[in-house]
């Protein structure tokens, strides 16, 4: 249910005029709720930024997500590769 909570928070924050991007661990949920910008990552639940104590991987995922912030072809559900 974490995924739904993220999507609902994202909607409220965008409604207040602030751009958002989220990480998605469950495409099934994100694709139904459709927040404006999300990066789907191929990791297990509990691992949204890939792996613990792996700063380079975490930075790659964050960079891919931040890259979506400037896009306006919403809703975007991009896949991290």
């Amino acid at each position: 249910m974490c995924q739904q909570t993220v999507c609902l928070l994202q909607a409220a924050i965008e409604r207040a005029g602030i751009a958002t991007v989220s990480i998605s661990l469950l495409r099934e949920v994100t694709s139904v709720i459709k927040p404006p910008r999300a990066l789907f990552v191929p990791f297990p639940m509990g691992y949204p930024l890939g792996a613990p104590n792996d700063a380079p991987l975490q930075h790659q995922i964050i960079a891919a997500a931040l890259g979506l912030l400037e896009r306006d072809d919403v809703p975007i559900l991009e896949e991290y590769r």
Partner: protein
Amino acid sequence: MSTYDDLSLHVRLFMKSYPFSRYAIEPTLWARLAKPLDKSRVALVTTAGLRTPDQGDFDRSDKRGDPSFREIPNTIETRLLVESHRSYSFDHEAVRSDINLAFPLDRFRELESRGVIGALNHRHFSFMGSIVGPRRLIDEMAPQVARSLAEDRVDAVFLTPV
């Protein structure tokens, strides 16, 4: 990769029958990033159930899920954060061994010092994501956090589930 098929039978059946479409965001609500990222003030929002050691715990007994949130000061040492999410659907040891896995504050500090983002906000927000009945979240808590972020003149928010 996580799909419903990776979840336990109990959780899978719940997820397959849960009316997610009831909460679909339509039409898509969105805001344009007002300035370049290297000039933007950024805040983090996580649903990993994190709190500081002096904050009260989330209510893990609430069947609908505790929709309250904790304000995480930007100055916190990440290793001091306490993870007490009630879900048994994920590996707690991984996030406890590195909070950045679900709340990448140290990574964003590095982006701030490299000038990739303008600045980090003075506070971030943490929820415990297992909110099965999200009415209070939608009506009260989420708008309250959104207002706080707007008052702080935050330009962009990065959100992570767990």
